C-alpha cells in the first residue's frame, strides 16, 4: 500500500473505511439490540461518505445517485427494523 503518491481524498477514504470497520466492534459488542442498531446506522452513514468521496475521486456525478439511494433505503430499512423491534423486545436492562 504505497502511501507515496496517494492524493488527500484517497487517504480520507482509507481513514473513513477504518472508522466504519471500528464501528463494527460496537455492533458486535453491543450489550443490547439497540446498540447493534445504533452501530448499524453509524456504519451506513459512513458508507454514504465513502461513496461521495469515491465519486469525487472518479469525477463522475452519477455515482452520487447511489449515495442518495443509500441514505433513503438505509433509512427505510431501519425504520421498519426499529418499529417492529420495539413491539417484541421487552428488555430487562
Amino acid at each position, binding site marked *: 500500500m504505497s502511501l507515496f503518491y496517494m492524493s488527500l481524498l484517497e487517504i480520507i477514504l482509507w481513514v473513513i473505511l477504518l472508522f466504519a470497520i471500528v464501528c*463494527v466492534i460496537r455492533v458486535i459488542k453491543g450489550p443490547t*439490540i439497540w446498540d447493534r442498531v445504533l452501530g448499524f446506522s453509524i456504519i451506513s452513514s459512513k458508507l454514504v461518505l465513502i461513496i461521495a468521496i469515491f465519486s469525487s475521486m472518479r469525477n463522475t456525478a452519477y455515482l452520487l445517485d447511489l449515495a442518495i*439511494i443509500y441514505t433513503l433505503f438505509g433509512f427505510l430499512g431501519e425504520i*421498519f427494523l426499529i418499529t*417492529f423491534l420495539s413491539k417484541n423486545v421487552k428488555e430487562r436492562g
Partner: protein
Amino acid sequence: MTTTIMSFWLFCNIFVLFQKKLLSMILWLFLSSIIASLGFLFLGSPDVAMAEATASAFVTIIFIVCFENFFGIKNLQNFIEEENSKTRENIFKKIILPAFVVLCTFALFMNFLPQAPQDTYLKNLYILRASTDVGGQNVVGAIYLGYRVYDTIFEALLLLIAVVAVVHLSHFDGVYKKDGKQSEVKNNAISLFTVRIVAPITVLFGIYLIANGAITAGGGFQGGLAVASFFICRFLIFDIYDIPIKKVNKLEDTIFVAVVIMASLMVFHGFFGEIPPNYLPIAQNIYLFIMNLLIGIKVACGFTILLYRYVAIERN
C-alpha cells in the same frame, strides 16, 4: 481498497452465520448486503450496486414483517431452544460432520480451480458497438434492453409469476382489505414527519432513475424498486390499505404484455439489427426510455403488491 472492503464483507458474513437470535442475524444480513453493494461499486458496477442496495432493503423489510408476525423476538429464543432440546442431536452430527464435509468440498474446489486466463471476446464487442447498435450511454442498460432483451422479458415474467405465486400460496385466499394491522408509526409524530418528507423524494428519485436509465447508472428495475418504496412509506404514514390489489395486478399484466409487444416489434424484427443503427438515433433513445419506463412501472406495481400482501394481509 476493494480487498479491504471485501474482507470487511466476509467478516460480516461470518457473523451472520454465528448468530443465535434471528433478528440480529437479519440485522447482520442487512449490513453485509449494504457493504456488498459498496463492494460492487468498487468493482466498477454502479448498476448492480443500486440494485443490491434496494434489494437488501426490500429483503430485510420482507423478513422483518414475516418474522415479526409469528414469533416475537423475545419468545423466539426459548422457542428455538425448546425446539432443539426436544430432538437434541449429539454435537458430532450437528456441527463436526457438516464442517468436515464442507471443508473437504472446499479443498476439492480449490484444488481444481481453473487457471485459464480471462477471455474478453464479448466484453470488447459490447464496449465497442453497444452505443451505436442499441444507443444510450449506459452499456449495461444497452445489453439488458437491446442485446439480451429476450432475457429481460423472462425477467419481467418472473416478477409477474412471483406476485401470482405469493397470492396463491398464502393462507388467505382472496383479498381482505379491511382487517389489515395498524402500523405502529402512527403514534410518533416526528418519525411521521420524516417519512412524510422522505416519501416524495424517493418517488421523484425513482422516476429520475427510470428516466435516464439509458444515460447514467440505474434503470427500470432500480427505479421501479425506488417508486415501490414510496407506497411502503405511504402505508407507514397514513397506515391505510386502500391499494386495490386486483386492479394493480391487472395493470401489471397489461404493462407486461406491452413490454413483450414493444420488445418483439422493435428488436426482434431486426429493427435495430438490419436497419443501419446510426440511421435512427432518436428511435433508439425513445425505445430505451419507453422500455425503462414500462419495466419501472411494472416492477413498482409488482413489488407494491408483494409488500402490501405481506404488510397488510399476512400479518394478522
